[in-house]
Each structure stands twice: as C-alpha cells, then as structure tokens.
C-alpha cells in the first residue's frame, strides 16, 4: 500500500530523518513509535506532502507520490489527522465533515453562485454523506455544535470523521489517543479496528504503548531519525535495541 524508500530530511544542518524505509501492507494497522524527536511527525509531514524530503521516495500503491501536494494526495485516497487537532474551529461539526467531501464533489464558483440544478443535488449528497460519517463515528448528536466548542476528545473524533469523509485508502493518524482518558482510548481502539475492517489501511504515530501493542499488526521504531527496528508487537517488545533506547531515554 505505502512504501517509503530511503527518506532523508535535513533542516538547516539538522538531520531529522536519515535513510528511513518502511513498508505498509494493505489493510493493516501499522504503528510508528519512538521517543520524542525521533522524526515521526516529520515522516508524516513528508508522506502527506507538507514537507519535501531531502532525498528518498514515497510510493502509494506503487505510484511515486514524492512530490505530490497534500490536496492531490487527498484525491488519491491518502489523508491524515494532526497531533494538535487541526479543526475548522469556526465551522460546525457537520460543516467540518462536509469539507472532507470536497474531493467527492465538483461544483465550481459559477454553479455554486447561481445554484445550478446539479449543484443543489450535489449539496444534498454532501450533507447526507457527512451525516452518515458522523453516525459512523457516533458524533451525529453534535452535528450543529461549533467545532471550537467541542471537548478535546470529541475534537479528535471529529478529525477522524472528517478524514473518513474523504473515503481514503490510507489514513495516517498522528497521536490519535494523546489527551484522551482511558474510556475514550478504548472507544478509539474499537473505532480504529472498525475502520480497518472496512478495508482502510491505517498508520499511526502513538505514545500510548498499550494501545499500540493492542491494535497494531506491525510496528516500526524510530530513534534519532533512524529506523531502529520493525516487527510484530511481540518482536518489538523483546527487541534489546528498542528496550535500551526507551530506557536510555528515561
């Protein structure tokens, strides 16, 4: 599904990522873990087109997407959530998800201004679909609330609903459980499994080890910009290099 091939990223003189390669199987849940500053979010930013790598390539289903812009990647079915929750704060929950349907609709400025018949139909479709996704994640009750007024946990959930509306093949989630309480985290784990069962591939960066070990099929460990290890959760737990990196850290 996703192949990352020898990615290096240098900021000024600082090497954030060095020759990182990894492979994500279709329909899997892959965890990317590592201490702070390991380069996890930088990797996500490169894959989603927000940063340009210094060298290396990214392939989505064998298509080289290295230089694609985020908006193009969304059209190809690659979408992400953010560590710091990037909602459209002044818009309602429903409208947030409706923006997720941008690539699924095409009315331009002229047909929108004049409310041409096709646009009216399309608008109805967008609204129905958006409500569907809110129901899918259990947020339908909050549809008319302004996104800025949501509690933090619901904000994370809204980001996932909005990402689902793009109908992606692959979702990258950047610390989806950060700031959630244990009840919310276990609900999140169930939702992520449900999303995977619907055929969507998931990659997540996460610090909550319990969650990662619980839901991931395979795990990649980054440390100081390099790939330290990869394998099944069990293999990672027993890997001496990983243990020493984490213990050395703390």
């Amino acid at each position, binding site marked *: 599904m996703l192949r990352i091939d020898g990615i290096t990223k240098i900021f000024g003189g600082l090497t954030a990522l060095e020759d990182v390669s990894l492979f994500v199987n279709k329909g899997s849940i892959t965890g990317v873990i590592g201490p702070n500053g390991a380069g996890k979010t930088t990797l996500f930013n490169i894959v989603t087109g927000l940063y340009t790598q210094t060298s290396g390539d990214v392939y989505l289903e064998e298509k080289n997407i290295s230089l694609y812009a985020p908006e193009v990647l969304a059209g190809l079915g690659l979408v992400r959530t953010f560590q710091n929750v*990037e*909602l459209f704060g*002044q*818009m309602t929950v429903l409208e947030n998800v409706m923006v*997720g349907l941008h690539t699924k*609709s095409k009315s331009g400025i002229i047909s929108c201004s*004049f409310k041409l018949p096709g646009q009216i139909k399309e608008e109805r479709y967008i609204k129905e679909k958006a409500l569907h996704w809110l129901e899918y994640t259990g947020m339908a009750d909050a549809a008319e609330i302004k996104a800025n007024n949501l509690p933090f946990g619901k904000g994370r959930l809204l980001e996932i609903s909005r990402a689902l509306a*793009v109908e992606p093949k692959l979702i990258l989630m950047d610390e989806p459980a950060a700031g959630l309480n244990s009840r919310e985290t276990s609900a999140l784990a169930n939702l992520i499994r449900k999303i995977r069962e619907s055929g969507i591939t998931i990659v997540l960066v996460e610090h909550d080890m319990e969650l990662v070990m619980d839901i991931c099929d395979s795990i990649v460990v980054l440390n100081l910009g390099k790939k330290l290890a990869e394998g099944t959760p069990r293999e990672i737990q027993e890997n001496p290099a990983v243990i020493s990196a984490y213990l050395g850290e703390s």
Partner: protein
Amino acid sequence: MTKEKREILIFLIFTLAVLITPLFLRGSYYLNVLVFIGINTMLAIALNLLLGYAGQISLGHAAFFGLGAYISGILTTRFSFDPWLAMIISALMSGGLAFIIGFPILKLKGHYLAMATLGFGIIMFIIFNETVALTGGPSGLSGIPNIHINSLVFDNDLNNYYLIWVITLMVMLLSINLSQSRIGRALRAIHDSEVAARVMGVNARVLKVQIFAVSALISAVAGSLYAHTMTFISPASFGFNFSIELVTMVIIGGLGSIYGSFLGAAILTVLPEFLRVLQDFDIVVYGLMLILMTMFMPGGLISGLRLIGEAIGSRIKRKSVSNA
C-alpha cells in the same frame, strides 16, 4: 423553519425594503446617499469574500474599483463603446488581472500579504494619475455616458437608485449562495486551518486566487457603475485611503457576513454626512472604530445584533414556555 428557508425569507424582506424605500423619500439627497451605499455594499461584499471568508487581507482593493471605473470610462468616452459592453469588459479585465497577479501575491501570508496588496494599490493609483493621455490624470475623466436600456436612460437619482440596487441585490444573492456552498465552506476552512483544508483535498492555492479574481470582478462592476452614474471620475476616489475605508466597512459590519457588509457600507457612507459639521473629523473616528471594533467586537456589528436577537428570542421562548 429550516436554516435555508429563513435565509430566503430574510433576503426577500431585504429586497422588498430596498424596492419600496424610494416611496418614502423626498429629494435627491437621500437617494444619492443610498446610491453610494449600494456601490459601497458591492465593494464591501467583494472584499468580504476574500477577507471574511478566505481570511486573506487586501489593502489595495480600491485599485480594482478604480480599474473598473477607468476601463469603463475610457472605453465609452474615447472609443464610444456601449456602457454595458464596457462594464463587462472592465469586469473581465480586472478579474483577469487579479487572477494573474493573484498567484504570486496570495502565496504571501499575513503582514506580507497586506503589504504586497498595499503596494499593488499604490502602483495602480500612480498609474491612474500619470497616464494622463488615457485617464486624464489628476484632473480626472469627465463626460462618461450614462447607462441606458433602449430609451430608458439612467441619468436621474431614482433611476440610478434602481439600477445600482438591482445589481447590488444580485451580487448579494450570488454571494450568499456561494458562501453556503462547498466553495464557501472550503474558503472558511482555509481561513481556519489552511494545512487541514489542503489535507482534505482543497486546492487552497488555486481557490484563493479564484476568489481574489471574483472579488476583483465584483469591485470592477461597482467601479463601472460608479463611473456611469457619476459621469466623472478622478484618481482621488481610488487611493490608499479608500482601500482602508473598505477594510473598515467589512470589519465594522462583520467578517464573513454578507448583510454585515451592507451594514458596514451603510454606516461608513452615512457617517461622513453626519460628521461633515465637524470637518475632517471622520478620519479620527474611522481610526478609533477600527481599533475599538477589533479589540471589543471582533465579530462586527452584525454579530452584536445577532446576540441581541438571540437574547430576545430566548426570552420570548422562555415566556411562552412558562405561559404553557
């Protein structure tokens, strides 16, 4: 009542009010002021699409207003074009220019964008002043013909009132439609988080340029109408100060509200008439209003009105509940 139906009802009431207002007015002075309010409403809406929805500032929008006025004025006086045709050409040319310069300009953000648009506005102002052979320079361009439909000539205040306001209402309706569509949502998404909007598949770069062009096009239509109703234009109407005045209208009325733009335009058109007694005092008042509104009422007057409306609404609801 659904949101959509309420929206339509408000627009119908507004339209009706606009159409019957002249029946209650005597004398050309008030009609004239209302004509200016109409033109300024179009301009404020145009800027609001960019500033209030997409969150991109322009401190040079008077240039597009001027461009519309001058292209229309020059085509009709020097090349005897029909005013309607001249208006269409001026709108397309201004929109086209905005589209071209939009790509490099809208790459900039925040303060840099403000300065770049300001620079563009000043360059255009200098061009209006210095290309004397075309524009007549600082002393202006006169003898611009009135618009006419067959034998109906728009040369008196009542006719002008209806000409300007029918077009203003059209601009309002189209802008309301646009703001409630996927394009409007995408623009607001860019405003709130450009990164997230792009990740959701919104081509922020192109959409910002497109809305910049639409905004310039509407401003040029307003400019063309201004030229044909005043029959005289001079660069002084299209300078830096007017660009700032337009920003003030949008801020005071309310960012991201079409009716707010009308409110802002109306206040800033009427205010100088009241302040005329105090002479030149208006500039101080504008400055104070900009500062105070940004500090204490960032949503503009329309949000203040909405809060009052909601308060009254909930009180009525409570009363009817307690009665039942």
